[in-house]
């Protein structure tokens, strides 16, 4: 029994006392009933790999791959095990010590490394999709590509924000805005709405030009070195400005931005700067003031889906509900299993389509059962996943919208 490299933070790994309270909060365990697909089981596997009892071989890697990284287990864990950190450390080790099949290698390389983190490449990649859709040639594509295509919204709306937009009422201060990679390409309107909301609440919105991908896809897939590069670039881009906060409207990116401090803690030149950056990061929902919204005249029933990286990774679940309720009042209905992952999980729905689709169906069924006509959420991945799920289920009467767009609906311009 040879000891493998010490990739796990030993103290963090040992803080799991194997009580099992996480089990029924884990989406994959709920689906498979297999302890290997549970947080407690995965930590057991990670520890076994670390001790050398198991190698980074196909079976354990399979179960670590199947993890969504939704971190619902962290919400459930009484011991405060930082599961997300352990997962990233394990995936980093696996990427260096395990060779995957050709298809998975190619898929991961294209999706995670070459396309998503670069808005212009994403835009380019979407060109053929537009053409195929226009000519209705989808049936010619292989299945995995069709599934990828189905995830894309029917209307692709891009749009970049100007470098600076001034507050629409006496300014309280200025905030930086993180555009993200997917947002400006697929949800340009949502970035527009977010900036508009901030301006109306009295904030100048600065969108620094040097920013890039937050690094979440790299970090979640075990490429910590690349994730750190992204972090350094963004820290540098925002550092020069006097900002009251750095606002992000994508929960998945936000959860990585708030962890730059942890990501760069061993880099003496950057650790303090990373801490300072992370301390300023706020999700859009925490920065908006719900008392500024009046109950809207619409009679649509509304529900809310918790993006994992907002509610589990950042512990934010009351504030977005307060915002949605401010507009919907008694038309708000709670969603069953609202904090259970929808299966999107970054690039997961591309690398693990089968499990992603099971969770998508589960989520969509709950949405339909709730009777809501609008489902509001805070993350582009969830939006894509839920929109395509509703489409597949034929639930055309239900809209999935980002909270920024929802909050702006029906608001008058002169507010």
């Amino acid at each position, binding site marked *: *029994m040879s*000891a493998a490299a*010490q990739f796990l933070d*030993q103290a963090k790994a*040992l*803080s*799991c*006392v*194997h*009580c*099992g*309270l*996480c*089990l*029924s*909060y884990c989406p994959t*365990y709920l689906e*498979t*009933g*297999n*302890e*290997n697909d*549970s947080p*407690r*089981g995965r930590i*057991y*596997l990670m*520890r*076994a790999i*670390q*001790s050398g*009892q*198991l190698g980074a*071989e196909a*079976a*354990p890697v399979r*179960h670590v791959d199947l993890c969504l990284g939704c971190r619902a287990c962290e919400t*459930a*864990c*009484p*011991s*405060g*095990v930082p599961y997300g950190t352990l997962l990233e450390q394990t995936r980093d080790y696996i990427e260096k010590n395990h060779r995957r099949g050709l298809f998975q290698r190619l898929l991961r390389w294209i999706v995670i490394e070459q396309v998503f983190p670069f808005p212009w490449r994403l835009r380019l990649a979407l060109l053929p999709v537009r053409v195929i859709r226009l000519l209705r040639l989808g049936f010619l594509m292989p299945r995995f590509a069709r599934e990828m295509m189905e995830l894309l919204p029917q209307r692709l709306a891009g749009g970049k924000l100007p470098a600076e937009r001034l507050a629409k009422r006496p300014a309280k201060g200025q905030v930086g805005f993180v555009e993200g990679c997917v947002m400006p390409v697929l949800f340009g309107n949502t970035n527009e709405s977010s900036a508009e909301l901030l301006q109306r609440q009295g904030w100048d919105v600065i969108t620094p030009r040097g920013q890039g991908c937050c690094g979440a896809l790299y970090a979640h897939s075990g490429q910590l070195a690349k994730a750190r590069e992204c972090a350094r670039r963004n820290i540098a881009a925002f550092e020069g400005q006097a900002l009251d906060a750095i606002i992000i409207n994508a929960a998945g990116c936000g959860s990585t931005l708030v962890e730059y401090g942890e990501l760069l803690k061993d880099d003496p030149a950057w650790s303090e700067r990373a801490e300072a950056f992370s301390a300023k990061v706020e999700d859009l929902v925490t920065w908006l003031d719900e008392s500024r919204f009046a109950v809207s005249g619409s009679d649509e029933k509304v529900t809310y889906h918790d993006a994992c990286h907002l509610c589990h990774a950042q512990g934010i679940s009351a504030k977005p509900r307060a915002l949605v309720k401010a507009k919907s009042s008694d038309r708000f209905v709670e969603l069953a299993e609202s904090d259970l992952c929808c299966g999107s999980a970054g690039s997961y729905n591309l690398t693990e389509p089968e499990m992603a689709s099971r969770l998508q169906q589960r989520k969509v069924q709950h949405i339909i059962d709730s009777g809501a006509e609008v489902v509001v959420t805070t993350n582009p991945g969830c939006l894509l996943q839920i929109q395509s799920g509703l489409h597949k289920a034929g639930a055309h009467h239900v809209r999935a919208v980002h909270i920024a767009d929802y909050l702006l609906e029906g608001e008058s311009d002169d507010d």
Partner: protein
Amino acid sequence: MKSKADKKDLTRRLAEIVGDDAVLTDEQELVVYECDAYTLQKNLPTAVVLPKSAREVAAIVRLCADLDLPIIPRGAGTSLSGAVLAVDGGVMIALTRMNRVLNVDPRNRRALVEAGCVNAWITRDAEKHGLFYAPDPSSQPACTIGGNIATNSGGPHTLKNGVTTNHVLGYEMVLPDGTVEWLGVEPNGGEEVGGYDLRGAGIGSEGMFGVVTRALVRLSKTPPAFKTFLGVFASVEQASRAVSDIIAAGIVPAALEMMDQLITQALEEAYRFGFPLDAGAVLIVELDGLANGVEQQARQVDEICRQNKASEVRLARDDAERAALWKCRKRAFGAIGRLSPNYVTQDGVVPRGKLPEIMRFIRTVSERHDLRIPNVFHAGDGNIHPLILYDERDPAQVKRALQAGDDILGKCIELGGSVTGEHGIGAEKIDFMSRQFTRDDLEAMQQLRRVFDPEKRCNPHKMFPGAKRCAEFTQKKQVAA
């Protein structure tokens, strides 16, 4: 193992019953099944199967009978006594895919559930009818009804509501020869059943009579009013006296729980509830019932706490604060991960009046073995849960932890109590059985067991002295550098 089947053949035959994706025989995937929440003993099962129906369970059990293989029923694996440890290998039947609430019948206040259904899900589905499932073990968000039946689980609210056996009307069980029986009240049957109460015999049998596949449970009406107090005391002794006085006054609180200083400190770090960090002990007292009665008892409880020198008696302001308090209490075991890499939870019972004595004794044990032992327990029924903290990387500490547990449980017997309140004997507390029971008592229990399982293949090597132990008793596997 006397198995006639080689592993490949076993894998194939199990897969014929449940499908390929429901059979695990690769050691790399069996590792996570080598223990439950009691991690001092570990051993790999020969196979794990994940059936979806009672019919599949019966077919697996018949196959194991043909091959003379042990069967180990398993739910969520939250047992604290090694109840689902595969001591001698065998086929582990995990009921985690049979986890549905099949129906809630509010008129008759019953629910029919599959054995792998998580305890808390019953209340989740029943609460819209103003009903709940009463037994509430701390692990209720994860543990399953099948496991609750096996150990006759309790929880903080057992003081007033009773334990699992008071709330499970009947259940379906696959006997070790593969026949399927329904014991007790049937899903559409009347409340009373003639003959011996075999249902009652099976509850608490620790999975040694067969594999439970469905259960019919009783639902209770949610009380109209609650009052939940936090009493703050300088010492465990003072809090214990308050407990005795509350019971002596004829009050039956829904729950009466105590937590000592080490526990409240860990919980405060985890949940920031606002526990006083300098208090020697805190009591959680919950009263429920009709508003008037609760009001009057609340005044009495407040007075009794103050007579026993409570420095503060705090009433939960609203449902949210009450929920926060219970969240802290129920997650107390898990929060221990903040204090120590490992712990072993003891589950002893003493007569209520002996609580101060056992608490003093635990303190001396803690000093003698140089181990921290926080306490969180059901004070109302004298059910103590000392949590012995150790580090499995240090073999000497492991030995001292085991000895400390032995000392404490020995004292419980001496004081007229028991070595288990609700966690069961499992693999952990076998040695105590002959100290608590006479040879004749144990033989009578074995006779009952043989009625259900003449070949002793169902969850073997548990509960009775003379059982086989795992060759490797802890710490070798998860060695840390």
